[in-house]
């Protein structure tokens, strides 16, 4: 089975080689966790190193801001556009859900650069323009359209910070439509805000199940090791896990005091 590598070595390792080519991926997380950065890095690495041109479809964030933010990581999106390896399209979500709207906007740029990857930023914005109950149907249609064009789509979803007992990524059953889900989240440990990434789902493939720390560096995403010394991170109440020998020592001390 061929893989669509992200070009981020530690993430590809977690994904056992990359996303499965053609699989729909949901990248979910609260604002500020780096969804756009990760998605852009996936497209830039595909366009520059893997001969897999890509399209970035944005609804709210303006292209000039995306060009500027990408430049801060050393990614020259305008140059990639000139080289026919990348296209940045900005439109209103309402047009995407009209009959023939998505095709009119996307078919030409996809053909022009023979795109293999596409990012939709974001499905949460799309949801504001779709009648309640129709979002799943519309997203299914979009995903099928991308798959028919042999694209590997990444759909961004701005989710609230998931904590406590609530573990659903979306409240509209979107998780069933996609093949893989990567969740990005903020984690407060000892009064400092850190970021964690976990692969929640990957259909038909093994994957790393650990919650791993990541940083957004001046060159893009850098995935670090898991939060080995902590547990309860997903529930929002992290605590240091006590090694078994600590319990034994504490028990022995308490027993001595009793005597």
């Amino acid at each position, binding site marked *: 089975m061929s893989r669509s590598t992200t070009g981020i070595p530690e993430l590809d390792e977690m994904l056992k080689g990359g996303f499965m080519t053609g699989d729909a991926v949901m990248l979910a997380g609260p604002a500020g966790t780096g969804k756009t950065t990760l998605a852009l890095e996936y497209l830039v690495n595909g366009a520059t190193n893997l001969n897999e041109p890509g399209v970035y479809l944005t609804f709210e964030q*303006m*292209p*000039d801001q995306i060009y500027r933010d990408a430049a801060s990581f050393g990614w020259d999106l305008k140059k990639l*556009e000139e080289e026919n390896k990348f*296209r*940045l*399209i*900005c*439109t*209103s979500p*309402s*047009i995407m859900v*009209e*009959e*023939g*709207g998505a095709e*009119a*906007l996307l078919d030409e740029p996809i053909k022009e650069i023979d795109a293999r990857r596409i990012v939709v930023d974001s499905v949460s914005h799309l949801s504001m323009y779709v009648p309640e109950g129709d979002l799943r149907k519309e997203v299914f249609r979009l995903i099928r359209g991308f798959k028919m064009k042999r694209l590997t789509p990444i759909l961004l979803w701005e989710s609230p910070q998931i904590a406590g007992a609530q573990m659903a990524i979306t409240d509209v059953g979107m998780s069933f439509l996609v093949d893989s889900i990567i969740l990005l989240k903020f984690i407060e440990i000892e009064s400092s805000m850190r970021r964690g990434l976990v692969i929640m789902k990957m259909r038909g493939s093994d994957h790393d199940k650990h919650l791993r720390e990541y940083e957004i560096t001046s060159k893009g995403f850098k995935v670090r090791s898991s939060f080995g010394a902590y547990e309860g991170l997903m529930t929002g109440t992290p605590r240091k896990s006590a090694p078994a020998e600590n319990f034994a020592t504490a028990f022995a001390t308490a027993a001595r005091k009793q005597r």
Partner: protein
Amino acid sequence: MIGGESLLQRLLSSDTKADLLTLFRGNPGLVDGIDGVARRIGRRPMSIKAEVDDLLDLGVLGKKQAGKTVVLYLQKERDAELQKALAAYLSTPGLVSL
């Protein structure tokens, strides 16, 4: 062929037109209906219609049907031509610069 001076006058005849040109030149991948375009420059669709029509007439903007919506986009080649013509006009010897 429009002369440099009248071209300059047409392109910069209103704040709205200047905003539209700034929007599309800064965001060449923008493909949106008049509602979306107006929203992105903080105006109402009806207040930009005349200026959009003039830019369509000049060929700076193009339009096509996307679903039920007519979407507007920057005609990059035509825009580059007009910018070149303007630059040539502005470098004319004897032109008084303000």
